[in-house]
């Protein structure tokens, strides 16, 4: 892993506007496309430029390819509630023809209109049981660079012609036009989830995918929208007995019968769909015994897993909890293979982080293309990379002040006590509102995408 990462900065949105907070980032399987979703329900797809011999220094930059609104904000007049949609997760389907397909899953925010005094004093809140349905949508993104010209019944502006003026028939001809990229919803998968959807994962059979909420995992056929098959259900008979929820799930990269899901108690379960139709009983349970010397009131909260990812090889699992990233061998359940400290200096601040709710932040984690480097985000717009082979790690910052195009990212360091060196930042100076939750790594090259609130940064390895 090269520590010299040349920064090519591409910003998504100039203004700090709450609806533009990026909530998901994902490369497609070739790395040609990069999709982002935001809290305003908007999807923006970037496409990598073809590398040109004439301009070798422009090493395939990403430019906006398509932008579409996944759903329009609604207003419920009866209850004086405004309903906004936020994109939760995006997953690309493998490319099979000229068009591109992606799945998006949505969340709903409900809040009262401040201009209307409702009779009910409804509080702005999230509902675990939504008013609009929780859906997964399949989008087709395709190009149009030709259009038909020479209609008989319409003129060039589209106005209907008087039939009495038509004396001859002609065949419309396809003529070139400026490239247009259309995004159309091709499937809407609904009525299967009551609770908040936290993950979607496309299966390696390219026919099915799964959607996961707090208590259930459902399996869908990509062609069929009116039914899904429930494969995991951990809802207790009495909701007051609920002590554990599902936090993330993913299919194995090549074995289409294997899936894993993580929980709020820090455990990972691997299920084999061949064993039984309902996978409530796991095949494997990955759990690390608690370290008694680190016990605190917050032990359970910080053990909650926010993300789980198979390695590209399928041999390893990576999990992210509040303070660490762990690598598990799929064949060893009793403890992780490797544990990496992301920001252990926060361990003495857990009470404050509990108070301001930061302890519930859900950080994601990603593998690089060769499964040798791990990446995850932190606070103060920092993100961390861990090299599994050299055991070296680096902290980098994604911020406009520090990143100019072609600049080299400088490693950052957090000072945990004692003398602070000139370039270091002390723990108490960290900005906890600047959190990097979402990052993505190109499937084969050293190109990364980092979402910092409402800005997207794309960094590439330095050209030698």
């Amino acid at each position, binding site marked *: 892993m090269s520590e010299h990462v040349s920064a090519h900065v591409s910003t998504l949105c100039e203004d700090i506007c709450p609806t533009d907070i990026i909530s998901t980032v994902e490369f497609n399987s070739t790395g040609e496309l990069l999709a982002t979703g935001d809290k305003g329900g908007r999807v923006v797809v970037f496409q990598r430029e073809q590398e040109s011999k004439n301009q070798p220094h422009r090493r395939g930059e990403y430019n906006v390819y398509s932008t579409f609104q996944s759903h329009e904000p609604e207003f419920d007049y009866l209850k004086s509630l405004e309903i906004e949609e936020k994109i939760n997760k995006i997953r690309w389907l493998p490319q099979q023809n000229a068009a591109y397909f992606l799945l998006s899953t949505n969340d709903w925010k409900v809040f009262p209109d401040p201009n209307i005094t409702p009779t009910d004093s409804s*509080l*702005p809140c999230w509902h675990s049981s939504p008013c609009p349905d929780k859906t997964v949508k399949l989008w087709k993104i395709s190009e149009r660079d030709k259009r038909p010209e020479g209609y008989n019944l319409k003129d060039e502006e589209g106005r209907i012609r008087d039939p009495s003026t038509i004396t001859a028939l002609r065949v419309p001809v396809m003529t070139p036009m400026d490239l247009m990229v259309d995004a159309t919803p091709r499937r809407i998968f609904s009525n299967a989830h009551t609770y908040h959807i936290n993950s979607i994962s496309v299966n390696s059979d390219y026919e099915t995918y799964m959607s996961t909420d707090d208590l259930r995992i459902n399996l869908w056929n990509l062609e069929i929208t009116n039914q899904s098959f429930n494969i995991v259900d951990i809802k207790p008979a009495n909701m007051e007995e609920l002590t554990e929820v599902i936090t993330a799930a993913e299919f194995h990269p090549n074995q289409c019968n294997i899936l894993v899901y993580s929980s709020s108690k820090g455990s990972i379960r691997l299920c084999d769909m061949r064993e039984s139709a309902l996978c409530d009983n796991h095949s494997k349970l990955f759990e690390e015994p608690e370290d008694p010397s680190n016990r605190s009131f917050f032990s*359970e909260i910080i053990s909650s897993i926010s993300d789980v990812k198979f390695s590209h090889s399928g041999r390893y699992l990576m999990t992210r909890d509040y303070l660490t990233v762990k690598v598990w061998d799929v064949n060893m359940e009793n403890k992780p293979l490797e544990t990496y400290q992301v920001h252990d200096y926060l361990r003495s*601040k857990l*009470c404050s982080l509990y108070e301001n*709710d930061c302890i519930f932040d859900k950080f994601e984690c990603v593998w690089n293309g060769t499964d040798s480097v791990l990446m995850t985000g932190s606070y103060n717009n920092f993100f961390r990379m861990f090299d599994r082979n050299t055991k070296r790690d680096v902290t980098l910052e994604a911020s406009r002040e520090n990143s100019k195009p072609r600049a080299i990212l400088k490693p950052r360091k957090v000072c945990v006590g004692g003398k602070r060196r000139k370039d270091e930042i002390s723990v108490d100076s960290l900005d906890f509102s600047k959190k990097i939750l979402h990052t993505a790594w190109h499937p084969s090259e050293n190109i990364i995408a980092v979402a910092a609130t409402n800005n997207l940064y794309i960094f590439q390895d330095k050209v030698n």
Partner: protein
Amino acid sequence: MLGKGLKRKLEQEEENERKKMDPHQEVMPTFYCLQRQTVLTLSLSKLHSQPAHSDPGLVRRVLITNTLRHIQEELRVEAVLLPQSLATDIKDSFTSALAEIEDLCPAVEITSSLTNSHKFRQTEPVHESMESNMDSALFQFTPSLLDSAQSLFNHCPSLLADFSLDDFLFTEIDNLLFDNTPCSSSPSPSSGSSKVISMTFKSDLNELDHIMEVLVGS
């Protein structure tokens, strides 16, 4: 060292002291109780309020409820082991926590918003409202929680009159602990209010149990 009169930052955890912690030890370090008090208060207020930032899932609620349950279990164990001295502590923990909650969430407003959010859920399709009883279950705790709090306050007015919350947390609790531990040579209470406390503590402990049962639904 109990550090009499020494103000400590509540946010800091003392890892070294925690390592020496033995559940069977009879003397609890002050800061551990202080932090437990803080976490208890925070957890109760979090369950009552809506999160400032968006978190639509159940994860947050489940984790907070589990944290509360853990503290409840600890306090229950302590109450059994040391009925005389630390039952006072337990009761005081809850009293002050509930007092803070009372300040933050006036009873009238909470009741009306609960009613309305319940109405909101009733207009939804049947299968959805049945599935959302986790939400309604947690919301319904609140009216009975406040009722219990009221009755608890009625039982021990002298406790609240003698101590303000600040006094209690930073100074008096040191005295109480030091004076009331079984290890100390004079087990009889040195302050007048603790006499009142010991007379009524049994019924208050039952109130306490009731409150916790209602709160976490266990």
